[in-house]
């Protein structure tokens, strides 16, 4: 993002001395952030299993995972986008618009549902491409562009179906998306999510493209010099984000058997929360997909367990906000403490002899 560089810089005088320690501290903190979040997930799971009745059952796992599918889908491309230092706030609106487009096509076009599904994913990609053109083509900050398209796409999704809801999707389709894998309590829909996570994970962590994404997040100019087309890569990331939103829109529509304009309203905030909770730096350049997946699961487990424990929905709102703030404040605080310890050690070394 363009306008966010204000905060991280420490007071000028301290900077040179502090930089190495800080970087090591931050690197260390973030390296362990993955581990910390996975550990947090395990602890939360265990505590919930022991303390919350009805939590550790196959049926509950099925409910929990089903609720997380859209969130997990959207978090995948969002991770890559945030790693490059951009953001896409329009994801939930794209899900909504894809959902109503699907409803409208089903209602009035007479096309087969298979074809509609493909069309909806392509339309999602097109919506993402619009974001991409504004961001990379016109060189506008993605924050502002996607706040704009957040409103635009949501507005259009109401225009497409108005107040109507389309609900007469075939029962075998709506049943198929909530069905568990035979013999287990894991929903079938987890399979495509895992596959996509693998694809995104490999792209981010095992390819030249992935390394380029980190390079862009750390320093856009350097990436350009290194021969990576920053604009084109980012453009395609936004397209991928749109296409995944199309997929999520399909799932949402079929799972709730209802295509309507307000589907997935506000989900973008949860997605960003999950990505940041997963240890991706909002400045770009840092973060791993494993952490994000663990972050998504952690959010899901905490919410589900609190809900089962009859915690007020309003308290849940506070928990989400606090988790988001904690997930950005904590790594910095840890980094600070480490840097301070490091400095003290250095000073001790200097004065000791």
């Amino acid at each position: 993002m363009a306008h966010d560089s204000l905060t991280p810089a420490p007071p000028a005088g301290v900077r040179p001395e502090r930089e190495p320690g800080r970087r090591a501290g931050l690197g260390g903190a973030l390296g362990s952030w993955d581990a910390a979040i996975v550990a947090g997930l395990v602890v939360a799971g265990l505590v919930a299993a022991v303390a919350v009745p009805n939590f550790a059952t196959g049926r509950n796992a099925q409910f929990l995972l089903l609720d997380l599918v859209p969130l997990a889908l959207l978090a995948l491309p969002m991770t890559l986008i945030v790693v490059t230092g951009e953001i896409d706030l329009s994801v939930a609106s794209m899900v909504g618009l894809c959902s109503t487009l699907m409803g409208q096509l089903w209602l009035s076009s007479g096309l087969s549902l298979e074809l509609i599904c493909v069309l909806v994913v392509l339309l999602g990609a097109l919506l993402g491409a619009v974001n991409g053109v504004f961001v990379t083509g016109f060189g506008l900050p993605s924050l502002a562009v996607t706040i704009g398209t957040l409103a635009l796409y949501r507005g259009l999704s109401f225009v497409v179906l108005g107040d109507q809801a389309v609900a007469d999707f075939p029962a075998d389709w709506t049943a198929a998306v909530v069905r568990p894998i035979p013999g287990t309590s894991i929903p079938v829909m987890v399979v495509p999510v895992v596959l996509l996570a693998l694809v995104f994970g490999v792209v981010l962590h095992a390819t030249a493209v992935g390394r380029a994404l980190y390079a862009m997040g750390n320093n856009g100019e350097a990436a350009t010099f290194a021969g990576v087309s920053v604009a084109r890569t980012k453009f395609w990331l936004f397209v991928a984000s749109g296409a995944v939103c199309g997929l999520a829109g399909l799932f949402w529509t079929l799972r709730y058997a209802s295509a309507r304009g307000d589907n997935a309203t506000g989900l973008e905030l949860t997605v960003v929360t999950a990505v940041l909770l997963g240890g991706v730096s909002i400045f770009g350049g840092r973060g791993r997909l494993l952490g994000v997946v663990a972050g998504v699961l952690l959010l899901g487990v905490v919410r589900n367990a609190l809900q089962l424990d009859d915690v007020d929905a309003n308290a849940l709102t506070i928990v989400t906000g606090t988790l988001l703030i904690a997930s950005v404040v904590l790594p910095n605080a840890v980094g600070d403490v480490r840097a301070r310890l490091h400095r003290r050690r250095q000073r001790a070394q200097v004065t000791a002899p």
Partner: protein
Amino acid sequence: MSLSDTGVAERSTGAPSAGAGRSGRGLTERLLAVRELSLLLALGALVLVTTLRNDRFLSGQSVKDLLLGCAILVILAVGQTLVIVTRNVDLSVGSILGLVAFATGELFLAAPGTPWPVALVTGVALGAVCGAVNGGLIAVARVPALVITLGTLYAFRGVDYYWAAGQQINAADMPRSFLRLGNQTVLGVPVLFLVALVVVAVAGYYLRSYRSGRELYAIGSEPAAARLSGIPVGRRVLAVFVASGALAGLAGVLYAARFGTLDAAAGTGLELQVVAAAVVGGVAIFGGSGSVYGAALGAVLLTMIGSSLAVLRIDPFWQQAVVGALILAAIGLDRLLALRMAARLRGRSAHGA
């Protein structure tokens, strides 16, 4: 997004203390005047079209309704301008407004005889405290305001919900003198609008004529340079968030006076409109330029679009889409102007050399 993408024009124009500042500032002001002029033209065109369709649109009652309707948005947009100019953003204003509005109602419930000025001061103070929480967290965590205020958007709203617990405060619970404040007119102009005018005038004068006001632009143009030139960046940013919170608090009290019926959901989703108003009003989302006058005009324009859609009997679902399209158009236009200006500045310095 890397700074180099967008920073060129703002950097050379925004900082008044920089060497090239003088000519740059003149140009900026001319361009801003152009922006304000074009907003006025857009407003005029909208009034004309709507009035041609329905001549009641310009009746006294209708103008009064419009002024009343935009007052709260104008106040919030002024606060947002202060924040955005420093290259930050405050997404929690809607939640602060909701919290303060409800608190005001609760105050009258708890102490029915409270004179309204006390309620006003209490509300503004509560808003300022919320703003200080934002500013403090941003200073501690050194992460973008976007993330922190996204978190407090949840958190403040959650506190509000938790407090209200489904309860509603009705007009009958508040003193007449307070409610009159919301609907009273002086010489046909609603009091609320006069308050908004005062806020705009004070903030406008401050930003233009005070050293610390100019420094806000310098911070937004290039934080590192601002820091090096001895501007207390941290303190200024904190102050800006306190101001934005206080103005949201003021808006909350006025909201209570105007609407009379209060539940915990007051002001939900307002943040988007506020950012939209500022951006449409020519406040660059990446900081360093823009005026409160523009932002106020943006707020008036958005409000007027809302009511003229209702008067023209256009499907109200288009409203949000129009807002989104306006944001995109506005930032696109800014980008274009910035590029032109950069080209002209280059031309001048070439002549000068």
